[in-house]
């Protein structure tokens, strides 16, 4: 099954047709790894199903996806592996679904993380997006449920949202596949580096900021080239057991090595480069 080609393109004649092909469970030889994160019940599984053609169970209640699902799609002939992560409200506590999500974004090194947010509850949803952006800058915000927002009389200015966050934002209605083509095009832009990202960081208290800037260089000395030393410093200051253990086992140094082995694709603002 194919989705509509981009509007404004005469795709019958252009050589590289901009098209999305659902690959189901065929994951071999994928070039980029894309993660799907988001609060529970924002339609992550709908996005996943629409892109991969798989039929991950979709239910209208939080906590539906507790383990991760994987599928594939191809766009303009480039193959992507898509991983649907459990829905979480935050990455700070230690329930198992949050751990799965956090570990995947941190150690799985996705080339792009799509954070699906509920357009009708942005205040609460952006909280998770900001936390993801602390770990990886390669984020695309998928502002889903735009139809419900319209029904409730909410106007979401997606451009201002993207500007404030420093990452691209795409309005979608996953159930009817509205905006999904644009979403995939944006993801493609982020993984190749054509779209530059400059994620905002939540401003913190000066004393905390001092502590972080004292600790982060030490972590970088342990794992040179690590892009998210600031986030790891924050987690250590919070006494996060898992991150402490990972540091002791030298897992971050391993990440940084993998990263420096990869060819640099683009600009300085890109946080995590995947390696295949």
């Amino acid at each position, binding site marked *: 099954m194919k989705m509509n080609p981009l509007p404004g393109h005469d795709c019958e004649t252009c050589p590289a047709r901009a098209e999305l092909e659902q690959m189901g469970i065929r994951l071999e030889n994928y070039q980029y790894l894309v993660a799907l994160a988001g609060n529970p019940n924002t339609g992550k599984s709908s996005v996943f199903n629409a892109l991969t053609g798989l039929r991950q169970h979709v239910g209208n209640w939080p*906590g539906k996806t507790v383990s991760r699902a994987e599928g594939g799609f191809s766009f303009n002939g480039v193959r992507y592996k898509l991983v649907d992560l459990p829905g979480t409200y935050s990455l700070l506590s230690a329930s198992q679904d949050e751990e799965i999500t956090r570990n995947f974004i941190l150690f799985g090194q996705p080339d792009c993380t799509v954070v699906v947010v509920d357009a009708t509850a*942005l205040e609460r949803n*952006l909280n998770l997006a900001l*936390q993801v952006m602390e770990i990886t800058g390669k984020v695309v915000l998928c502002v889903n449920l735009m139809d419900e927002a319209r029904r409730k009389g909410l106007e979401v200015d997606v451009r*201002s949202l993207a500007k404030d966050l420093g990452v691209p934002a795409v309005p979608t209605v996953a159930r009817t596949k509205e905006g999904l083509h644009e979403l995939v095009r944006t993801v493609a832009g982020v993984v190749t580096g054509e779209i530059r990202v400059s994620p905002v960081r939540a401003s913190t208290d000066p004393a905390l900021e001092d502590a972080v800037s004292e600790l982060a260089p030490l972590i970088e000395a342990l794992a040179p080239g690590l892009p998210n030393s600031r986030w790891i410093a924050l987690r250590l200051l919070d006494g996060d057991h898992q991150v402490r253990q990972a*540091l002791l086992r030298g897992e971050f140094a391993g990440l940084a090595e993998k990263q420096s082995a990869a060819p640099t694709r683009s600009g300085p603002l890109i946080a995590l480069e995947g390696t295949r």
Partner: protein
Amino acid sequence: MTPPPGEQKAAEVLAKADALRQGLGEGFRDQLVASLYQESQRIARRSVRRSGTGGWSWDQRIDRIVTSPILGLPLMLVLLSVVFWLTIAGANVPSQMLATALFWVEEQGVAVFQAWGLPFWLTGLLWNGIFRGLAWVVSVMLPPMAIFFPMFTILEDLGYLPRVAFNLDWLFRRAGAHGKQSLTMAMGFGCNAAGVVATRIINSPRERLIAILTNNFVPCNGRFPTLIMLGTIFVAAAFPPALASVAAAASVVGVVLLGVAFTLLASWLLARTVLRGEASAFTLELPPYRRPSILRILYTSLIDRTIFVLLRAMATAAPAGAVIWILANISPGGVSLADRVAAFLEPLGNAIGMDGVILLAYIIAIPANEIVVPTMIMVYMGTGMMTELDSYDQLRQLLVVEHNWTLLTAICLMLFALLHNPCGTTILTIWKETRSGKWTALGALMPLAFGFTVCFAVATVARAFGWGS
């Protein structure tokens, strides 16, 4: 022994982090969270504009009724009863049609095999063993599932399930368990193994264990057909025809409520003994009501659920059918193996209001609960005269007239269908989620202990009143 240099450096960094944390003081984590919220709020407010009030009041008005402290629970009961009533009333006719058709196929198959002069044991094993088991599973389970699952999926898609959790939350908290357990319990109505996996949404390990160990107290859809059949044959028969299907539905609802009550009781017991502690707080988001998409409901309920359960039942019913046929037809010393085992289990079965064959069926059905009733029937038929069970009346005939079932037998069996060991898949899932032989054993044996205790008590009291001896 000195640690490798990398590890030593890492330990130094950790020590530094600990020292810095001391300097930051207590409120640091709250500040961190607050700063995230402030930033989200700031960005969200800048990009969202509210024009008019739209559909806000519509959602809220429904929620005020559905989750109201007074109307919430009764409304839930009514909804549940209607769903079961529609299932029972609607499944009867198609069940009989399917059974008539499939048993006609069996007859033809047997006739063909006999005409070809094939040995009796091959005919028996294939047609009277395997095929009859499959035919039973399809004709009795398919129609109720094809009605029940779409309705359940509609409620799920609408967003009603979290409201159920909201209504029940206070009960779980008072039992010392996590409020989200009401959600994993609701999931257990679909499949207990899925319910056990769903407990991952519970943060506290203590409360998660309670949710895992008690999930089996609600009947999964492998067990609903048994309950629906017993309700239809025995409970409904005690009422005039006009009320029969209502009474049957009420008995199934009663068993479901009992399941919830036992979930709470077992949680309470665990929270006061081996898993002591306080209930932790959480926020439950009530999602907006969404118009269910019809195609997706049909797909989810028919392919993901109905066909999935049916195939699983058939996959276990076929070998079980063969095993039972062999047990019933190998007779050293003139008494079949099935009869010997059943006779051995008879005293225990009798003490809890049932018989040895029922217990034998529960042992054979450990891989999947779906095949308890077909197993029982095959053992009864293999040992007695061959009956064609193409209607509920004939099934009733077999159980009541030929094997002395009473209303007490049916009630004890309904209770035992609710309270017994989880199926093989669920036990395996409990082990996978807990990685502990101890908790897995408790999860498997606790419901069984409840079942024996409750059935024994019911049978003893009933017999003391000279009722259904």
